[in-house]
């Protein structure tokens, strides 16, 4: 039992707070002690699994493991792209209906993106193939 929780229980025992207040305080302490979100170091690889069944070629299984560091390196490489070329990329993305500004993608804010990818699982399942993409 940690000191904060003991303090709450002492206050309850001394009658300084009632049981409902003690419960609220302990719940707040537990929330505060919840593990911090994992950083990029925890997500090491992007896994792509493909299980296809083609009539002509028969069953095919593909298993690809891509290091997440490659994503970071790719963003750094994107930083080298000339401003004019970046504008063209943004314009092309806008034409495709993707309102994304690649200028905003920097190694600094990549951690947030990867954090969101951590819980991402993409499952595509149809007659001919099953595709699964997830982080590990």
């Amino acid at each position: 039992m940690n000191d904060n929780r003991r303090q709450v229980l002492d206050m309850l025992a001394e009658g300084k707070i009632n049981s409902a207040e003690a419960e609220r305080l302990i719940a707040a302490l537990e929330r505060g002690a919840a593990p911090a979100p994992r950083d990029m170091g925890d997500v090491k690889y992007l896994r792509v699994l493909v299980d296809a069944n083609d009539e002509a070629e028969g069953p095919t299984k593909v298993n690809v493991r891509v290091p997440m560091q490659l994503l970071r390196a790719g963003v750094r490489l994107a930083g080298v792209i000339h401003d004019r070329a970046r504008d063209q990329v943004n314009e092309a993305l806008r034409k495709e209906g993707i309102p994304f500004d690649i200028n905003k993608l920097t190694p600094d804010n990549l951690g947030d993106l990867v954090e969101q990818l951590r819980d991402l699982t993409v499952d595509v399942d149809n007659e001919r193939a099953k595709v699964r993409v997830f982080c590990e």
Partner: protein
Amino acid sequence: MKPEILPPLSASLHVKPAGWRFGLRLWLPLFLLWLILLPLLLLALPLLFVGSLIFRFNLWRSLRAANGVLAATRGTQVEVNNRESRVFIKLHGKDMS
């Protein structure tokens, strides 16, 4: 040199065509390839420098970024398994991971 800025130093390649009793297991020393390419890069540096002045890009940053992409491929695994063959490729770093 920090291990995280080194490109993959070796690769494992396993190939087993259907019908073969034993597969082929190869260990490819990629560091030899980098040793061969390094003098070529040094020879190309003046040209790249002139190119960076003409097209106005930061040569040092570009080289670092390109090396970063190469280094980040360490740990990549590709496995393809179908009726005709089974192929497995893995790029290793310094610690063979």
